[in-house]
């Protein structure tokens, strides 16, 4: 079993599904010979041919729209949007059609498609290459929004997303594409969607996050452990529909919750978790919920980027607030 990175795990899952299901096709800009600007589709066109791995003309609205059309006929398009910053032209087809085709036709037609996009900041990229707007998609009924945070979850969740009979927005935290390696067996075992993963059990405080920020969140949990604080760490993994029960149970146990997101604070997905707690977990809370989030500004260009990204220190400060609250 090889140790692989997240982006290699994505590639492995794509290859697995291309081999397993003839209806799966991979499409997008530069996914063919070039293997994707992050190499997520490297080697796939060579291995599976130009009818399974297709370079499209440059038009994200088109990529969204034809994926819907293909999916209505039972194909399983796995489309890549090169960066999340270029996903917006595709929103209309995702929101108005992919998310609604099954409902609209009472199940006669459906949209078993996946739209993959690398997302998030922290890689010193140009403008529009650092977006974290997952909350926009998590508000759309009929969609699934899935975000892996490790190579193993990248592999298992992408298999699940491709096999899922409904449309999935699969957001890949590019900052950790190559950050860690992990043993991942190419065993075709999908992970469950619609559930959280408790990455670390703890009893004093619950830290909730998803995607790349779990890296900082887990580090914060380590640092808290060193201070004698037992932090439970939850990876939301599927943001839509989301597993509030696991979060509520955890907070019922710990009484304190810090939510960590890279996205702009206001209207981010963290707000939904905080709202859930205000509505259904209020009496478990010993301290106010704390959101550690990106600021409500545009992600700055690289020179100031690091000041925007939530840091371990900010997570620790929020945890301290929650723990010391009396």
């Amino acid at each position: 079993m090889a140790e692989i990175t997240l982006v290699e795990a994505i590639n492995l899952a794509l290859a697995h599904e291309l081999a397993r299901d003839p209806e799966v096709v991979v499409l997008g800009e530069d996914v063919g010979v070039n293997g994707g600007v992050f190499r997520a589709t490297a080697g796939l066109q060579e291995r599976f041919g130009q009818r399974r791995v297709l370079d499209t003309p440059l038009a994200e609205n088109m990529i969204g729209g034809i994926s819907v059309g293909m999916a209505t006929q039972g194909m399983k398009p796995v489309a890549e949007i090169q960066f999340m910053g270029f996903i917006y032209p595709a929103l209309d087809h995702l929101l108005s059609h992919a998310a609604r085709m099954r409902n609209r036709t009472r199940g006669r037609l459906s949209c078993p498609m996946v739209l993959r996009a690398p997302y998030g900041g922290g890689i010193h990229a140009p403008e529009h290459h650092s977006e974290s707007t997952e909350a926009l998609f998590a508000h759309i009924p009929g969609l699934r929004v899935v975000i892996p945070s490790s190579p193993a979850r990248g592999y298992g969740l992408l298999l699940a997303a491709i096999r899922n009979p409904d449309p999935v927005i699969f957001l890949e935290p590019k900052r950790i594409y190559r950050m860690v390696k992990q043993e991942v067996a190419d065993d075709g075992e999908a992970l469950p969607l619609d559930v959280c993963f408790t990455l670390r059990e703890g009893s004093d405080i619950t830290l909730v996050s998803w995607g790349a920020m779990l890296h900082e969140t887990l580090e914060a949990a380590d640092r808290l452990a060193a201070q004698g604080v037992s932090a439970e760490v939850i990876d939301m993994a599927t943001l839509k529909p989301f597993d509030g029960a696991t979060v509520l149970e955890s907070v019922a146990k710990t009484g304190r919750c810090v939510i960590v997101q890279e996205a702009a604070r206001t209207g981010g997905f963290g707000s939904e978790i905080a709202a859930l707690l205000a509505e259904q977990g209020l009496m478990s809370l010993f301290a106010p919920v704390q959101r550690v989030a990106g600021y409500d500004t545009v992600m700055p260009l690289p020179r100031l980027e690091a000041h925007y990204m939530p840091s371990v220190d900010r997570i620790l400060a929020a945890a301290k607030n929650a723990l010391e609250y009396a």
Partner: protein
Amino acid sequence: EGSPVRFLGPGGSLTQALPDQALQGDELLEGYRFMVLTRLYDTKAVNLQRTGQLGTFPSSLGQEAATVGLALPMRPEDVLCPSYREHGAYLRRGVTLTEMLLYWGGDERGSDFAGPRGDLPVAVPIATQALHAAGVAAAFKLRDEPRVAVGVCGDGATSKGDFYEAINLAGVWKLPLVMVVINNQWAISVPRTAQTAAPTLAHKALAAGIPGEQVDGNDLIAVHHAMQSALATARGGGGSTLLELITYRMGDHTTADDARRYRPDAEVSAHWKEDPIARLRSHLTEQGLWDKAREEALLEELNSRVEAAVEEYLATPQQPPTAMFDHLYAELPPALQAQRDALAGEVPRG
């Protein structure tokens, strides 16, 4: 600008010799039946809306040759990707009158076609179906299936990115797509001339490297002929065609619109001379295929079909409110169970 292909003049007589494989005999009569059925349905639907028994409805009055004609030469296994005004095409494809009334009456079950299971439902967001059609065509091509996707949109739709992106892809991927523009001269209140400076909408095909043709959309024989050859090209691997069907929207944009605000009655009445149904009837009569008795019998038959469908539609009990949850995902996600339960527990409201 442009001189659309035409075989039947407004008076119903031939303007040129019919080509081989032109629509004739029983098939032509079949086309006529669908056109008349479309008009009866259409008129009834507008009346139902006016009396509060149907939702907002887009009449296809005057466009019956275009919508029926585009569907006539399609094979059952082809896929229609229409906009919202193609009632004639749906009927010919086998969508039932009751289904259509249910849809426009505000019931999702109207899009669960018992007949053409692969056809797409009404697309309300303008031009989006052009890309769906390109996607359907891509699926056929990738699977090596000899099937064709037919996308239909209006003149207004040709200003929107989706339209260009769809035909551009169809050109470069040589997709089995026939893209049909029903140019009825108006997009609500905006006339065709305010949409584009292109001399014809068929010219837009040049940007995609595919053939484009203007066709008299009020001439069933011409529409059928152009469609038939575009379908054959697509099916044979020859790629995509853009057809601009020239017609006129005789009615308001929808029952929510009042076209007198923006276009003179005189313009509308002038277009009655082009009426596709009268034109075809004259032709059929000239050919000895039609007479008053047959017309009366047909009207009686179709009227009662429409009445029966209206009855069935009005008698269809509404879905339970919880139905709004039941086809959102293949399986109800646990996160939605509580909401569904809450809705189930609500006192019914109207």
